[in-house]
């Protein structure tokens, strides 16, 4: 089997690459910096004796996606599944953020993913598409508003393609993530423990044959989100200092 991993160079993407490679799947790995991709490709090929293609793709740029990824139709036809372990954040993501930066966030976290996933669906009637959202997408807050909004849009998009593909053989899966042990959360003081990317990547691999799956990771976020959803927004607004 051949899997395309968008955002493979670090964090969850890197771990997913190793998990799928260990299980003897060939990979097409994409990220912004070819240096990271070359290192990952060489390591995986040497250790697991599988084939890895490395494509330098800037997910915030439509031109880069078209030129470096989608124009390679032969490669796309070979793909059995796409994983999008990608997320872009800005330290200064707050209301009033520059429009270019908002666009970058929207492209990286939502529209480029939708663009690539839709292209895949148009080529194939069989396979798997895995998206990764964020618990921040469940409630608009003062922190990271555009990141949260893009992740909410992404979840909505995955629900849509799940409806659209319920009768064919494309599996749609969506993982809503809390804090993980990656550089994005490194050094942050968080009350709840961070989720292991290794464990998550194993879960993703194990679930790959399920038709439709929505999954919270770490699991306790399911309960937290459930509580947030049943509390009226006006009450949440009043306790906003708690939710910062």
């Amino acid at each position, binding site marked *: 089997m051949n899997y395309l991993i968008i955002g493979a*160079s*670090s*964090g969850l993407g*890197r771990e997913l690459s190793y998990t799928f490679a260990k299980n003897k799947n060939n990979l097409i790995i994409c990220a912004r*910096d070819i*240096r*990271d991709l*070359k*290192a*990952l490709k*060489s*390591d995986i090929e*040497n*250790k697991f004796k599988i084939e890895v293609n490395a494509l330098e793709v800037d997910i915030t740029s439509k031109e880069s996606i078209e030129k470096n990824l989608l124009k390679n139709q032969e490669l796309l036809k070979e793909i059995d599944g796409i994983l999008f372990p990608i997320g872009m954040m800005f*330290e200064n993501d707050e209301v009033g953020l520059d429009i270019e930066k908002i666009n970058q966030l929207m492209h990286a976290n939502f529209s480029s993913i939708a663009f690539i996933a839709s292209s895949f669906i148009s080529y194939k009637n069989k396979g798997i598409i895995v998206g990764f959202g964020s618990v921040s997408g469940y409630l608009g807050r003062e922190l990271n508003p555009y990141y949260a909004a893009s992740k909410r849009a992404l979840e909505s998009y995955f629900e849509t393609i799940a409806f659209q593909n319920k009768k064919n053989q494309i599996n749609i899966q969506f993982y809503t993530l809390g804090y993980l042990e*990656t*550089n994005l959360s*490194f*050094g*942050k003081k968080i009350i709840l423990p961070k989720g292991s990317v290794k464990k998550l990547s194993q879960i993703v691999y194990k679930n790959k044959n399920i038709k439709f799956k929505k999954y919270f990771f770490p699991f306790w976020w399911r309960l937290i989100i459930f509580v947030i959803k049943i509390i009226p927004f006006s009450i949440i607004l009043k306790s906003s200092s708690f939710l910062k």
Partner: protein
Amino acid sequence: MKDNYFKQIRLKSFDGSYSSDIFLKKPDKYRDIEKFSKDSQNLITMGSNYSYAPLSFYRESVVLDLKKFNRILNFNNKKKEITVEAGMKIFELLNFTLNYNLWIPQLPGYPYISLGGAVATNAHGKSCGTHGTIRKSIKKILLFHKNHGWLNLSNEENKEIFDLTVGGLGLTGTIVSITFNLKEFNFTEFLIIKNKIYSIEDSVKNLKIQNEENTFIYSWNIADDSKNFGKGYIFKIIPKKNGEKISKIENLKTNNFKIPVCLWNRFTIKILNKIYIKFLDLQKKETNEKFLNVIFPFVGKESYFKLFGPRGFIESQLLVPNNILGDFLGEIKNLCKIHKPLITLFSFKIISGEQTLLRFEGDGVCITFDFINNKENHEFLKEIDQLCIRYNVLPSISKDSRINKNIFDKCYTEAEIFREKLIKFDKNRVYQSEISNRLKI
């Protein structure tokens, strides 16, 4: 700090002598190394932080932890060459290369040490008498320097910086990847031949007689009894085949258990030495041992270090030139009679090479002592320092965190040359650690 990608933590050196709050950053992309370095005034790189002395941090310094840079970048079986990222641990390298019957012979005694760290300290393994130090296996280095950017270092390219970097304690920049020349290793286990020895003179004589190509040889001696000072065993280790594959070395399971007091004292040292020597007496002269047990003797014996308690220990490793060995050992024996230091480990091995810059390298005998960290032992070690100056003996600065600038300058004849070359390369002296500040490098 300009960004959020750091964690403020307290680090302690492995010997427990120094601890400090630092800002830890864990790059996992090449551009992170560039960004994190450019954002910091002073920084230093950390591999596994297993150096006995504090080489990879300093008070409130920015520390780049290269754990995520642990990949194989290139492997050429025909040329017997491998390029790996510097955060790769020794066991990760061996787990891969041993599949092809290849290895680097200069392996420090613990498999969880990073290769970048081994290069920065110019590590010497058990067979340094025949194989020299790790320097002999290094072909190329990729270095990142905050102001100079990416630099390829080798004997052909940027040779001066290459020489400063191997054994340069990480002060020239971040070692990002290393190309090693591998050696064939077709063996799967080791034959250990034990010989009882009765004095330090006996030890040294036997070490030299039995030192042969492709064998490792070292001694274990006791130092708690002035009458039997140096009594112990010589271990001659010969690689052999048994048809089985070498089993994969597993990652370390961290054990944070701490002992609140030092359990080593005159009584426990004596008892444990007696038990160990009895145990060796009862064993057959020749035994077969697994690869892991021989190459990494400290695996599974980590509690030895924990027994020193919160104050830690002092390891003194001395490179004694052959021509003054007898006189030097005589002086040590006398000093031991006077000071009665509490020594938990005393060992000899042969070492070879050429001493330049900061490298613990040269032709002679390497003597290792582990001491309890107390006032009496510090007094004893001050006397040893003076002996080192008098006899041109080299103390290891990466092992012994007591060494001060005065001792360092007098024992390392090229200390000033290293300083001059380093300042010429990096006038802002970006990369700093506790040791570079203590020794004014």
